[in-house]
């Protein structure tokens, strides 16, 4: 029984690796996110570029939370950070996220957990413009965990995101 289980896990692991590299694909629309420093799965010479459709294809999560930058409860939809990390097989410890205005913040990879931050692309069911902190915004589910209601987490909640670099 145990033998069979171990074999199954091994097959799955072997099958996943080539699948990821193949299915990343090339962006067809405007590139909204560039992930660098993760060369194994890159689609643009050491980097991975995503258009909105590609991000949506990575899997979507929705949750409702209030934020300190908005009024009232907001509905967010986006790619969980942990899924992005898994998809790109990122192995480092720290991600540096940079916004359009070159604001940058370091996010430890340990933040990328299930139920953790997402790279939101929809606010209240609509895509976000740059004027409204779009097109991408790293949002933590602030209301679900008190530890997310800290200044550090707020500083990591970067909006108008367009680049992620694995720095370590």
């Amino acid at each position: 029984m145990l033998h069979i289980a171990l074999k199954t896990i091994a097959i799955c692991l072997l099958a996943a690796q080539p699948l990821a590299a193949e299915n990343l694909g090339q962006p067809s629309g405007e590139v909204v996110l560039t992930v660098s420093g993760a060369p194994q799965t890159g689609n643009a010479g050491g980097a991975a570029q995503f258009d909105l459709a590609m991000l949506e294809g990575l899997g979507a999560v929705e949750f409702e939370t209030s934020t300190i930058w908005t009024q009232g409860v907001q509905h967010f939809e986006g790619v969980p950070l942990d899924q992005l990390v898994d998809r790109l097989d990122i192995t480092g410890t720290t991600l540096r996220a940079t916004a359009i205005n070159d604001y940058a913040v370091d996010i430890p990879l340990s933040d990328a957990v299930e139920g953790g931050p997402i790279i939101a692309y929809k606010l209240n069911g609509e895509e976000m413009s740059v004027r409204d902190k779009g097109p991408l915004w790293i949002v933590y589910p602030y209301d679900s965990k008190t530890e997310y209601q800290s200044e550090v987490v707020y500083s990591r909640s970067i909006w108008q995101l367009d680049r992620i670099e694995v720095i370590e």
Partner: protein
Amino acid sequence: MAGRKRSKIWLRLAAFGLPALMGFAAIALLAFNVSRDITRLNSASSDNIQWTLSQTEVEFLQFDLALSQAQLEEAPDFRSLRRRFDVFFSRIRTLRQASIYSDLREVPEFAANLATVGAYLEAVVPDIDSETSALQEALPALKAQSEAIRPDVRRLSVSGLNYFAVESDFRREAFSGTLLHLAIAIAALVAALAVLACYLAVLNAQNVRRRTQVIEASERMNIVTSTSLDAVVVADTLGRITDFNAAAEQIFGYSAKDAVGCDLGELIVPEHHRAAHQAGMARLRETGEKRVVGSGRFKLEAKRANGEVFPVELAIQSADTKEGEIFIAFLRDISSQVQAEAELVLARDRAMAGEKAKTDFLATMSHEIRTPLNGLLGNLTLLEETRLSAKQSRYIRNMQTSGKLLMSHISDVLDITKFDAGKLRLQMVDMNISTLLKDIVDSLSGAAAGNGSTLEWGWAGAPLNWVHADRDRIQHILMNIVGNAVKFTKDGRISITAQSSAADEGKTILQISVRDTGTGIDPGLLPHIFDDFATGDSSYDREVGGTGLGLGIAQRFVKALGGRITVVSTPGEGSVFNVSLPVQAIAAPEPTREARFAAPARKRANVLLVEDNEINRQVAREMLTAQGHFVTEAHNGREAVEIAEETGFDLILMDISMPVMDGRSAARAIRTGGGASARTPIIAVTANAMAEEQEAFLKDGMNDVLTKPLTREGLLQLIADHPSPAPSAPAGAALRSLQLIELEETVGAEALQPLLSRFEAEMEAFLKGLENGQDLAANETAVEAHRIAGSAATFGLPELRSALIRLEKAALSQERQAAEDALSPLRNAWTSTKPVLNLF
């Protein structure tokens, strides 16, 4: 007590502890506040906001710079321009929407600037969003607008910064305030703790002091127990000795070392008490019932180490200790005390026996002296009535005087003995003081006249005639005092003054002063005047005689009556004796008694004289017969009982001390025997004049007491006092016997006796014949009855005679029924008459 004290301490501790706890809570709260404030100070939020505000201006300037660059270039990067605008727009929107800036938006200046900048953005949005060519054309205008709005953007960020600077100051102040509060709270807490510490220190000092006191008390207790003269033995509920003091060691002969741990019962309880002791201990263990514990002192026996059993007095108390209940026994060796008590009792018994022996001796002597003296005086009285020469009469009078004096001396000695033995009994009677004083004056006025003195008496104030008092004693006292006054007064005057005054409790004080103008009393003798055997002159050639007992007795009687006697005297001028006595004043009684005394019955009585002493018997008989009374003699009690059984007497004179059967037993036998004289008055005749004995005589059924020597007057008075014969005696026997006595005197006893015997025989025969069936209605019966009735008349027997005549009449008229009816009265008359005949 202790519990209340303890709870009081707890209350105080709580009073201090509660504020301390509250202080701790306050400090905790303040510490939390401090921590929060520190977190706030540490947080980047304000820095971030400040960064955001400055970023607003930076982003505006970047947009403005992009505008300027676009104006200069041929083919401007509109995408970059638009992105700069969007970023700035996004920033302003964040400022307008974010909840964290809601406080900031309340600041009017900031809100106004924000509105201005917002309005500008709304105004330029169409141009930015227009086609590239249109945007190209609008560039100069946009630049101009941005130049115009630039100061507003500056003010926006600056006003926000000012707000946060103020806010920061406020927070610092709040923080320092919190710190201050914390410091105050800590100071207060420290103060409270300091007070609490002081209080605890005081408590501790108290405890230390108390502990010292307890130790000292315990030591004192130890010293007390160890130096106690009583043995102190402490035992537990099992009876094991836990403590044994020095006195216990000494008393029981065990050392404390040996005794402690031993069983109490085996060690000190004697064998014969051990079972009871063990039962008591078992009961105590099982039921907790305590019989001896805490029940005070009691006496028991204990055992010493050498086995000696000795009496102890002990008390047991129990106490609860941590080790359980203990029993503390305090024991005192009372062997010597018990021995002393026994000796004391023995000594007392001996003394009492000695006293009794003395009293008995005196009583006996009194009797033995009085009896012959009685004989002497009685014979003198009889001799006096015979034919005597004048010389002989004088000798007899002298002998009588000497004899009476001797008798009074004996009485005096007996009175003193009785008083000193506490046996003087008062005989309270109704009496007339005036009569008494008058009698005394009458009896002594002759002697006073002999000394050439006058004797008088009178009342000072209202007279108090009738009182309830001991007449004999008062008379004795006054006779002594007045007698002395008469003796010592020559050619003077003796006056007796009586006076009454009211005293407490309804009593009256009777005061009698006897004043004389006699020789007076020497001042040196005055203090001893009431001593026994005190005489004015101890040399024997004194003018007046006396034993010197008179005033001693007077004083004793006065004391016995509860009064006082005093004397004032001046030699050569005279003396005044004052006697004051408490008496009970009473109303004058009916005068019947007086009348009875005044006129004693003159009838002749049938007297039974019981006396073992021949001389005395003879004297008494002579005195009685000389007065016409009839005397039957008995030599002892037994004889008296036998005679009294058969014959009904008017009076029985009963001597007390007699051989065979004494007078008391005889009196009881006569009273209870139901004989002919069962209800005849019995008079005790005794030389033993002790009051309590006289009471005993009365209890035996005797009616009065006559003290020897017998005097003619005393005897006559007695017969007058007891005139009525007992009902069982023949009715009117005395009267009828008078006729027989006359007959006896006429014909002589020798002649009378056969006549009576014949009469009796005839009467018996007649009655016997009637009972045996002789015809009651027969003529013979009438004749015989008539004949015997004649004899009855001769012998003075009217009752018998009338009964016979009644029968005779019935027989004559042939009325059988009437004859039968007459038979019963005849039989009764004969039954009551027969004893009278037997007297002759």
